[in-house]
């Protein structure tokens, strides 16, 4: 149990680190999601023939189908990465800070 006051935390290096880490992770993942989705939209807008290619010689399935499904799955995987980071790193950093003010 710590003895610090709530206000003292504002300049605590641990708090500043927590804020900067959380923001970094959040924005990196947000940018990745934007690149993933708008990359897909850009392909549709500017390079339809790329998406229209067949996956293999003996199939009708186009490369666009796994790319679209991949965008859906990729979005979910990104949320999984975030939750893994938050559960393992973020929560323990928060706990450490809360301990400092005794609650």
């Amino acid at each position, binding site marked *: 149990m710590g003895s610090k006051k709530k206000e003292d935390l504002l300049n605590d290096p641990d708090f500043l680190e927590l804020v900067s880490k959380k923001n970094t992770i959040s924005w990196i993942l947000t940018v990745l999601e934007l690149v993933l989705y708008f990359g897909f*939209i850009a392909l549709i*807008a500017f390079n339809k023939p790329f998406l*229209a290619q067949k996956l293999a010689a003996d199939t009708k399935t186009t490369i666009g*189908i796994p790319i679209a499904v991949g965008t*859906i799955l990729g979005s979910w995987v990104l949320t999984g990465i975030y939750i893994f980071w938050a559960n393992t790193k973020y*929560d323990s950093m928060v706990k450490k800070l809360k301990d400092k003010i005794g609650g």
Partner: protein
Amino acid sequence: MHTTTIGTLNITSVLFFVLFVISTLSITYWAAKRTRTTKDFYAAGRSVTGLQNGLALAGDYMSAASFLGIAGLVSTRGYDGLIYSVGWLVGWPIIMFLISEPLRNLGKYTFADVVAFRLSQRPIRAAAAAGSLAVVIFYLIAQMVGAGTLFRLMFNLPFEVAVVLVGVLMVSYVLFGGMIATTWVQIIKAVLLLGGATLLVFLVLNRVDFSYGKLFGMAAEKYGDKFLEPGQLVTDPVDAFSLGLALMFGTAGLPHILMRFYTVPDVQAARKSVFFATGFIGYFYILTVTIGFGAAVLIGADSGKLGRDIIMSIDKGGNMAGPLLAEALGGSVFLGFLAAVAFATILAVVAGLTLAGASALSHDLYVGVIRRGQSAEKEEVKVAKIATVGLGLTAMLLAMAFKGQNVAFMVGLAFAIAASANFPALILSLMWKKFSTQAAVWSIYIGMISAVAFIVMSPTVWVDIIHKADKDAITKQIAEIDGKVKTVDAEIEALTKQILPADAIAAIKKKKDQAAAVQKNTQTQASIDGKKKDKDALAAQKKDAGAKMPVAPIKYRNPGIFSMGLAFAIGILFSFIFPEKDAEEKFATEKLREYVGIGAE
């Protein structure tokens, strides 16, 4: 002729539907006894688990429009439908990374709690309530009109009966059971919808030896390779990006979705619920796309008719692709089950919307603005309940007023408002120290007004709805001119054939006959020239008619990018013009609660 029981009252579906209504009303009765405080009414006592909230979020978000509409779009337009489905998922990671945890730590019941955290309460709450209500009303009208149309199509039930049935049930859930009942309606609906769609996909895959390759092969065989390639849906890049932005950031600004993060006990549960919700919703869209391709390939497979033609003969928009497929693969019992699920789907979405609208009216507008934050628990719950009934009646009346109208654009409009009015203010208040009250208020109002104005000025409303009569008349006129041109062309061709070639004339023995032939040729040529002049005149007429075609002031069908950009620009600019020292100082305390959760409700 393809025989279907769609359009007649199906006994199985009535049974399933009655079962759903009885069980949800029983839950509402049970929930009513547990709904006393505002925390119970708005936030289910913050006792919902991460998994439960994940299912409820999915239940709140997966509408009948996406279930029936996207399957229909895929079955009629192939790959283009798949493109559309992706856009509906990509807002969820944004909610996870930027919104859900700060919202949970900073707010109490509505997203306005967060925007108003360090700014002036009254103006912010009034603006945020307006933004929320605009989204809720447009979304509700689209859902209710959709319900009325859907059930006339499926069971030949009168439009008004369906609207009243949906309205009365949604008000009952919210009025008596508050967020607890609404949450369980959404959970049950999500389980039914995911289960029903999974079963349907299993039946589809069973027919194609569990090979997607074979399914796509059959689709290409029936509709050509183009069916599996991007086509005409996305032509203008600006339009495509704009639609994508509105879907992505609109999802992160929907009041009924944001509200759900207050139902869980802590941030851990909040983030867990987004992870589950994203998984369920992504899985659901993959199922829906499979159902679409399955419908295109398997409906009418026995009769040799094209699935697409059968689907479009029943509903031009393709909305019956899923139900028709269910009937083809699982008989009328399965069709009945799926129809009941579609009804449950609409009910869960409208219940969530009504609750979000009621909390904007009571928590933000009544308590926050009129009573200046001073109101007893009991009074606030009472006002929220009155708001629920009022909103329910308004929604029913508006649905009747819009009967038979094209309201599909209203869902897009709801997303555009959410992305332009709610999202910029929310994200700027969370991330930016200098964000001020004036900036937030103007950003919300201008975002909302411009989202509505730009859509009205876009071809979606300007040409297709407001000037529909002109557009249809001119389209008809042009078609008539085209028909006349065809006739003239045929006449010219026939006349051209009558002209004797020079060698044939030379071969004519008698001089007199030869002269007559030459003269006849000259006459024919003259009438051909006359016809050609007629054709030129027709072309000029067509050009004149085309020039009269109504043109929208904005050429993009999805102008969300402009209203959202405007809202952000105002939010940033006005923060510099009207700075707020007090709010800047409070940012540090806000951060402590936002990141560490100290003082969170």
